């Protein structure tokens, strides 16, 4: 099939995603990723810590671990959809970061993303595909934050590329 041979125009892909997001908004809520990831963190923490998790109030007051939280399944779906797309178009293969510096950057970046999402209550997806289109004041706050952050990140990245 042609779809699995050529790269899809991202404008077409994102327009389609936006239309689907409108339906999702009517049924359960707009597209988001951070909330599902937090719930997965809570479920994993519960597996590792058992009853000890009760000693961390965050998991009682903000996110109570619950496997029936719909946002989890968006993330799992994205993983599944991408896996199918990659396998059918013969693009699936294991890729490892080559240099140690890449591993370090990914580690720091991952940690910052995790802390940032929880501190803000939103991730980049909710910012661009939820809050801002809902004209939520938080959307503008979040966009100014993410633009400043991406700029600082880009400057660090540039330094690393040159150095």
């Amino acid at each position, binding site marked *: 099939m042609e*779809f699995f041979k050529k790269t*899809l125009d*991202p*404008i077409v*892909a*994102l327009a*389609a*995603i*936006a239309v689907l*997001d*409108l339906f999702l908004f*009517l*049924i*359960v809520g*707009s597209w988001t*990723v951070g909330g599902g*990831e937090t719930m997965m*963190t*809570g479920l994993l923490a519960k597996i590792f810590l058992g009853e000890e998790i009760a000693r961390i*109030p965050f998991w009682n007051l903000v996110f109570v671990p619950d496997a*029936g939280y*719909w946002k989890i399944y968006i*993330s799992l*779906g*994205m*993983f599944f*959809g*991408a896996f*199918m*797309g990659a396998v059918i178009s013969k693009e*699936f293969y*294991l890729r490892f*970061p080559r240099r140690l510096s890449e*591993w370090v950057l*990914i580690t720091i*970046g*991952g*940690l*910052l*993303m*995790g802390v*940032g*999402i*929880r*501190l803000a*209550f939103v991730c*980049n*997806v909710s910012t661009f595909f939820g809050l801002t*289109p*809902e*004209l939520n*004041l938080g959307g503008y*706050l979040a966009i100014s*934050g993410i633009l400043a*952050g*991406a*700029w600082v*990140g*880009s400057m*660090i990245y540039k330094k690393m590329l040159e150095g």
Partner: protein
Amino acid sequence: MSVVGECLVAFVFGSVVGLLVQRSRFCNTAALRDAMLFKSYRNTKALLVAMMILSIGFPLFMTFGEGHPLRFDVGLNTVLGLFLFGVGMVLAGACTVSTWVKAGEGNVGAVWALIFTFIGMFLFSLVWSWNYWPPAPASMTGQPNLEALQLGFANAQTLQETFKIPAVVFGLVQAAVLYAIYRAIRRKEEAQQIKHDRIAASHRQPVAAE
């Protein structure tokens, strides 16, 4: 809708999104980073188009009280959190969407980023349990709370209630602003293309003379 139904809808939505993002190589990080570093706007334009559609669609539904908008107070934590996120996503080379999509393509680095996103969230849960900031959704008031550095809650619906103007009007204004940005990017790209063609032409000439 039942819990299972909700999860099923979310999974189907996620699968289609994963497939579309994988096939189009869209990346939210690249949409911001490439525009800033390399003056390349392939992903930025796609992001703007999606936001234009949603900026009209969501407020249109909200005008009639339909849909499920996000409800929580925002404040300094929103700016700070997304700032940290912005730095993190450029360093990791992937945002929340592309970590899942790249993990699905077999990218071990993306799986590593996901693991550390989870660890970061867990670390935050420890810090939160110590200082209780930002306020938990249960204790949010929707009103500005300067002591907790919170600005309260406002969206298309509250705008409609306050100004008695249909929410969709505000949405159309936002979509128009996004379109203006889109147009400006297109013009910039056209200018880049002309410059590129001119340089390419000047490089061709010596070859022709040989």
